[in-house]
């Protein structure tokens, strides 16, 4: 059927749905729904990691293979340093920029290396906003409780307390750098309500929050003359005789030469894993989201946590084909957008947590109440025109310019027609285990942002990622900078590879996979 014909049911049922209030699921119903439909509970997608710090723990097969993968660096590799620095930041997204800036401000010499350009990241795409408890009726404690609920009570309490308490000072820092957060009439920061939150707490820059923050942070990194190594992909870390981290080896993707950086501390801010397309899911993630930091840290002995849980964002575009996997911001649901099945019915409270909403969409589709596209995809409607109906014409244009433009490029006016969505692989809930200074169990190896784990429990709350990046980017940068002043540069070896390779051999893991992946293999080979 023509897409417009199928959309009629959404238009036809809008007024009736507006009068409806859908209760949130009870904790028991929630658990049941998630266990039955959430991709985290598909047993056959998982297997135990055979060896290493998390030997025996289960994760998705795609990640397990990479964690067990071999290094491209040989034991006898020439480790003469091309650069020497106090703090080496790997990754140019939000956490990387924040870490570099804070380390630099504390007087450390900083190098920031990234395999794409500075700023090419998931951070730049964050549309929903940044949770910080600034409103009078809100508090860091309430932020803590909401996040804990969203994370199924599995969040690391220390990490979480640090994040929510430092939130307001992060907002102040960003404002001082010139970030233009949306304001109320009285000049105070405007807050929106996010899914899974009991209070309005999202700071936004229309639907360009991540872009605005990243424009400013990138500019600041350049203004501070922080040394950059762009198009340099980290392929291995170095360690001294005690196993402490002492630097990293990169591959320059332009000239294919290796670059060795000696550093007193290394901060991995390498982001997530969306481009592994686990369980065949499309992804909202950027080109380089291949979990490189997890592999590097794991080979050096860093323990991972909660790497069996991933976030599937409820609203990835399914139609048109060109936008598959791209995100339709949660802000649309925050402002009242309904999810509607093929029968014109709502089926979930749209402001429930992401895992609950995603599971319910998968349920609708598996039980035959989805809308299918001829390329074999399936989805449900997100009633975007409802926002203009509810809050007046022009609401979408004003609050969601990015979304309007993205669909407009393909001739779709989302203020007139609903969009078809299905969950898309969005976020790695777990990652490398860190302490409150963002340090791993490997001395002088820090991990900040999505690559780290523990903070978000088993489901990250909307708007907590941008704050995570800023808080733990800052803490890792400050800690590394202070430490650098009082320590000598350690020796550069790849001694840890010997042990790792011996373990691999013992466990019969000669799968031939070399990790990290660096970039996904999308290039079509000769057929």
């Amino acid at each position, binding site marked *: 059927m023509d897409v417009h014909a199928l959309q009629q049911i959404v238009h036809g049922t809008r007024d009736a749905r507006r009068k409806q209030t859908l209760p949130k699921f009870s904790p028991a119903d929630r658990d049941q729904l998630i266990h039955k439909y959430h991709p985290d509970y598909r047993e056959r997608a998982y297997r135990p990691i055979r060896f290493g710090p998390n030997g025996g723990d289960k994760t998705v097969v795609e990640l397990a293979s990479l964690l067990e993968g071999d290094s491209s660096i040989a034991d006898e590799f020439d480790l003469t340093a091309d650069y020497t620095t106090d703090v080496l930041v790997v990754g140019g997204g939000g956490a990387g920029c924040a870490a570099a800036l804070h380390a630099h401000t504390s007087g450390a010499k900083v190098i920031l290396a990234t395999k794409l350009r500075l700023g090419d990241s998931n951070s730049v*795409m964050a549309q929903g906003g940044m949770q910080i408890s600034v409103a009078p009726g809100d508090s860091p404690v309430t932020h803590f409780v909401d996040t804990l609920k969203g994370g199924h009570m599995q969040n690391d309490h220390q990490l979480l307390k640090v994040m929510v308490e430092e939130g307001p000072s992060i907002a*102040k820092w960003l404002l001082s750098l010139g970030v233009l957060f949306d304001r109320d009439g009285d000049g105070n920061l405007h807050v929106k309500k996010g899914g899974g939150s009991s209070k309005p707490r999202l700071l936004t820059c229309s639907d360009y929050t991540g872009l605005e923050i990243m424009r400013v942070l990138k500019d600041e990194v350049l203004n501070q003359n922080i040394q950059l190594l762009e198009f340099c992909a980290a392929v291995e870390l170095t360690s001294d005789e005690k196993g402490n981290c002492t630097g990293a080896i990169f591959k320059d993707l332009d000239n294919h030469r290796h670059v060795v950086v000696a550093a007193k501390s290394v901060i991995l801010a390498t982001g997530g894993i969306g481009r592994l397309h686990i369980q065949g899911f499309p992804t909202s993630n950027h080109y380089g989201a291949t979990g490189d930091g997890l592999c590097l840290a794991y080979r050096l002995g860093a323990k991972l946590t909660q790497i069996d849980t991933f976030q599937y964002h409820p609203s990835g575009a399914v139609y048109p084909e060109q936008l598959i996997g791209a995100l339709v911001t949660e802000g649309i649901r925050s402002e009242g957008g309904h999810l509607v099945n093929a029968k014109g019915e709502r089926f979930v409270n749209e402001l429930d947590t992401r895992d609950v909403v995603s599971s319910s969409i998968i349920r609708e589709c598996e039980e035959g109440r989805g809308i299918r*596209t001829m390329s074999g995809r399936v989805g449900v409607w997100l009633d975007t025109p409802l926002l203009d109906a509810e809050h007046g014409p022009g609401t979408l244009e004003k609050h969601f310019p990015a979304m309007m433009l993205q669909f407009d490029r393909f001739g779709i006016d989302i203020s007139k027609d609903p969009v078809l969505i299905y969950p898309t692989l969005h976020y790695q809930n777990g990652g490398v285990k860190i302490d409150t200074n963002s340090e791993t169990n490997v001395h002088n190896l820090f991990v900040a942002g999505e690559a780290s784990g523990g903070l978000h429990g088993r489901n990250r709350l909307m708007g907590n990622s941008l704050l995570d990046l800023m808080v733990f980017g800052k803490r890792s940068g400050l800690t590394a900078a202070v430490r650098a002043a009082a320590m000598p540069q350690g020796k550069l070896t790849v001694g840890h590879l010997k042990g790792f390779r011996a373990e691999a051999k013992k466990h019969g893991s000669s799968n031939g996979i070399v990790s990290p992946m660096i970039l996904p293999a999308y*290039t079509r080979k000769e057929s």
Partner: protein
Amino acid sequence: MAQEDTNIIDQPEVIRHKMVTVEIAGKKYEVPEGITIIKALWYSGQEVVRGAGCLGGFCGACAAYYRTKDDPKVRTCLACQMAVQDGMSITMMPPFPARKATYDIQTLKDPKQDLFNLYPEAPLCRNCNACTEACPQKIDVREGVWKAVFGDFKSVSEMFMDCVMCGMCTPVCIADIAPNLVALYVSRAQGAHFTEKPLGLDARIKEIQDGRFDDEWATILKMSEKELADHCATVK
């Protein structure tokens, strides 16, 4: 499954896999119609390192030029957001060596005057409008440059909120202005110097410093798992 069959969106282009001929950097390739330019690069066997970033239309890494069949007009786009069609000619934009001024945004004394020290070329706009035509985000770039020069920093910051810093406005400028960089400076100055300080934020920071939430924290952090879960369930 009869019910499902009525819920299928027609997409003949997907079914038929119609192939089209496009020219990428001067060479012709057959690619499926309707895929994005970035996907066409992959499909035609090219390794993409430079020229792809967020793949979501936000990072500006994939700035590209294209021309449709028989049309002399060369247009700009973000390659991850543009579908290919038959007869299209495409080339990716190379990195352009625009000059970025460096400044300490927080210690600027007179940001509106400083604009002319940092970007002395900004007032030299000759009104050709090429920057506006080059913007894949549909920003009225030329107007923005003039507003910056006349000190209307607020309008510039609003107009350029959509700017993905792809830089396509820069190579076309006959006055060697980098409008995106000018606008970034202006927007940051607007935020850091000409925007009200949110009093509520300072109040909250002080509350945290003064330990206003310490008792609540002590209660929460002492709770057993069960107590905490019960407490969380009461917060709606």
